[in-house]
């Protein structure tokens, strides 16, 4: 919080109607502004349009909540914009709210830009008032003015600005309307010393607030925080503020006043003071709205409401969801086939040819090609899928459908510990587990998000299909389709079972109440969709790329070196040589473990190389079982139908590929990644063992 601002705040409000002064009291240069708003108020559109999409994306320290910071130039300022998580209040009930509160109150923010939904302003105004009370300098954006207009809501913006004593900018962000005025108001606000820490009056409770403020005046707290905000938070029983005040040793001094206020509230209103404060805030908001909103009688339904007759109707929801998810799947995976193969060809053919034509030793060239380039290629091959997936999700998000899906499915999925939004990662998992884990970002509830990320690798990704086809084709040629269907269903059943168990046994405790604002349907802005996707794609390449390249190098080294030393790069193609490699020795170490399942060391090695990508299982098996000509015959000798079925069950359930693990690590940390590896390995082993035991018992 800007201490200077609090101490020297001017007493005259410059925002009386359109009157704005611009006394330049601070040195021009770098500014930090925060963008706040409840979910679905067009925050990301404003962020992208202000920053031109040039953003740094990471996580808020110690959390998995996405942090976006962008920068833009305005007059002589370089302005950093922090995109705060969408939140309804500044109470510490969820990690998102806590982050928003901490940034506004703890960081040196010069200005908070708060987005208000003009078509349904009540809840956004609640957030704006909460932010004003912290002592922050605020500019309000009244977004979706076009929709408000259509549904007959007319605002007296000057009056709203007058009452709140802050600039209010009417905007239609998605149509680029209002940005010039917004930028002007941003500069004027930061150059002006005015702040309004008392946007509303808490009736008779003002006396208690004043008494608390008086008591706290002597403490150091006044140098860092707005005492009025602290007093209101104390009455609201905000545990973070109580803890902070207790640490300062002044809680006892104000406790009696809080108890007194609570007693009065109970006697007068039959409610505790912490429950009464939000009620008063809403009453005041409604009083403000009565003054600034003029409703024009509109007899007709809105276009969005008409569509919601169908789109949010439980009876028909599933019949809309199926085509939409199928289309997302088509767009992300099928439409990306050419681009993925093109990247594959560039890496495996063109670049490979160029590398082998360089005047270096073949061993060095093999290291560059198989060790490094293959790793980079294996990441970039996913890129078209991920790029299209993010574009698809952004479109669904901006159209307004994603909120409806979450709303409809929450009732069902919450019963097994998931969120309504979990359906998206789960479906995407059938294409690729990497974007599935990335897509969990749309889930606000931390526990549900973590559980979804941990169970989505059970969805049979497309990379596992070649393994299924190989084994089902050789061992169950008459029932190939049925075997593959069973595998897909097994993945889904295991995922649901685990999410239920995780919620009941590991991630217990209350989940966040599911609150979602259903935004009006909009035609998405192409630039915004592309910018939003671009930021996410850049991040994926950076995060997943580094670990995959390292892993690829390690596997290459293990394949070309053995206890007797360097085997030569040809060991990757010659089974006899490969058998002398460290990776074969590693396979033999695991052989006693896989023996009870009816497999030999070669099957174990194929599972190990499957860590890189599941398709690699097939190519490794082909090398280890004697090349293409005798491959199938050798497989038939090495596996029985039962051990073959156990093997594909293992492939379905064991650890996801390195790319998925890398993303799991970057999104949730080492612990989650390690836990996922362990529990999936155990699940795969136990499930395969059950298959073998059952088959033995049934005499198959």
């Amino acid at each position, binding site marked *: 919080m800007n201490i200077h601002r609090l101490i020297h705040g001017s007493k005259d409000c410059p925002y009386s109607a359109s009157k704005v002064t611009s006394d330049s009291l601070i040195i021009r240069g770098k500014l930090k502004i925060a963008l706040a708003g409840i979910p679905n108020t067009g925050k990301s559109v404003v962020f992208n349009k202000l920053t031109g999409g040039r953003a740094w994306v990471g996580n808020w320290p110690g959390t998995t909540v996405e942090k976006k910071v962008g920068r833009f130039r305005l007059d002589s300022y370089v302005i950093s914009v922090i995109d705060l998580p969408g939140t309804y209040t500044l109470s510490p009930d969820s990690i998102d709210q806590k982050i928003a509160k901490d940034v506004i109150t703890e960081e040196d923010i010069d200005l908070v830009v708060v987005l208000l939904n003009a078509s349904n302003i009540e809840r956004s105004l609640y957030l704006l008032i909460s932010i004003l009370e912290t002592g922050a300098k605020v500019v309000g954006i009244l977004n979706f003015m076009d929709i408000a207009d259509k549904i007959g809501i007319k605002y007296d913006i000057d009056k709203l600005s007058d009452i709140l004593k802050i600039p209010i900018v009417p905007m239609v962000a998605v149509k680029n309307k209002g940005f010039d005025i917004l930028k002007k108001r941003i500069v004027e606000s930061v150059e002006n010393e005015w702040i309004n820490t008392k946007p509303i009056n808490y009736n008779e409770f003002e006396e208690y607030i004043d008494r608390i403020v008086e008591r706290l005046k002597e403490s150091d707290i006044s140098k860092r925080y707005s005492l009025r905000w602290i007093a209101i938070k104390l009455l609201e029983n905000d545990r973070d503020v109580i803890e902070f005040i207790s640490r300062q040793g002044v809680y006892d001094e104000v406790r009696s006043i809080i108890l007194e206020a609570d007693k009065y509230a109970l006697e007068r209103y039959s409610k505790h003071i912490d429950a009464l404060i939000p009620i008063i805030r809403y009453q005041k908001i409604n009083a403000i709205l009565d003054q600034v909103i003029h409703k024009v009688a509109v007899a007709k*339904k809105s276009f969005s409401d008409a*569509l919601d007759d169908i789109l949010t109707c439980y009876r*028909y929801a599933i019949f*809309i969801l199926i*085509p939409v998810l199928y*289309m997302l799947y*088509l*767009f992300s995976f099928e*439409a990306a086939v050419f681009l993925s193969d093109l990247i594959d060809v560039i890496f495996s053919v063109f670049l490979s040819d160029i590398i082998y034509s360089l005047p270096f030793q073949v061993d060095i060239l093999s290291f560059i090609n198989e060790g490094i380039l293959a790793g980079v290629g294996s990441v970039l091959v996913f890129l078209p899928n991920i790029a299209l997936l993010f574009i698809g999700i952004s479109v669904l998000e901006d159209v307004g459908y994603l909120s409806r899906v979450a709303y409809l499915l929450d009732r069902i999925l919450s019963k097994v510990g998931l969120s309504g939004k979990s359906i998206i990662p789960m479906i995407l998992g059938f294409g690729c587990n990497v974007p599935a884990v990335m897509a969990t970002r749309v889930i606000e509830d931390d526990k549900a998000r973590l559980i979804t990320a941990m169970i989505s690798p059970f969805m049979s990704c497309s990379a596992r299909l070649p393994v299924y086809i190989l084994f089902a084709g050789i061992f169950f040629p008459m029932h190939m*389709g049925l075997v593959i269907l069973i595998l897909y269903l097994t993945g889904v059943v295991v995922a649901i079972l685990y999410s239920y168990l995780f919620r009941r046994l590991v991630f217990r405790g209350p989940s966040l109440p599911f609150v979602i604002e259903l935004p009006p349907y909009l035609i998405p802005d192409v630039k915004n969709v592309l910018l939003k996707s671009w930021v996410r794609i850049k991040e994926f390449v950076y995060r997943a790329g580094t670990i995959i390249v390292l892993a690829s190098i390690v596997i290459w080294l293990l394949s070309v070196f053995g206890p007797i030393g360097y085997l030569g790069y040809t060991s990757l193609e010659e089974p006899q040589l490969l058998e002398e490699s460290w990776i074969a020795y590693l396979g033999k170490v695991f052989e006693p473990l896989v023996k009870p399942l009816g497999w030999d060391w070669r099957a174990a090695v194929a599972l190990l190389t499957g860590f890189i990508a599941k398709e690699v299982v097939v190519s490794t098996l082909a090398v280890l079982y004697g090349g293409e000509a005798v491959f199938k015959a050798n497989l038939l000798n090495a596996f029985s139908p039962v051990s073959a079925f156990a093997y594909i069950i293992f492939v379905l359930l064991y650890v996801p590929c390195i790319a998925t693990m890398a993303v799991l690590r970057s999104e949730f940390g080492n612990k989650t990644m390690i836990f996922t590896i362990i529990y999936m390995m155990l699940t795969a082993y136990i499930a395969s063992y059950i298959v073998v035991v059952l088959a033995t018992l049934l005499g198959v």
Partner: protein
Amino acid sequence: MELGEVKIIKLLYGGIYLIFSALIILRGTLDIVGIDLSQALYFVSSDIGYGIVVLSIGVISISYINSEDIIKQASGLFVSTVLSLGLLGLRILVILSHYLDYLLTQSVEGEGLFDLTSELSYVEIYTSIITIVLLYYAYRILRRYTI
């Protein structure tokens, strides 16, 4: 357009989708159990998943068919035609991607496989024009009765 007409159009449009979805699912199921009816049912695809999608669009088309609310009737028609056209657009995009992939494979490996008739079923081509017309009608009705 009156309520009765909208209902008839919805029934016809939804009916076409429901019949085709039944044929698609039937062909897919017969393929799995090994009965080849590809010649007799060449005009529909054999993908059960796609059949379920077509079935869903059919169901949405005939949604609220007993309702006397023209907005609800038009909403159902609007949503189903948007889905239908979106699906067609994506199928064309996928075919383009598969075709480019075929050209790429052919240039690199000297061989490849691409069969347009197995990629795009005739059902999609037949229904696309009528879908555009109905989307326009549904949109007009919604625009007239809503804001």
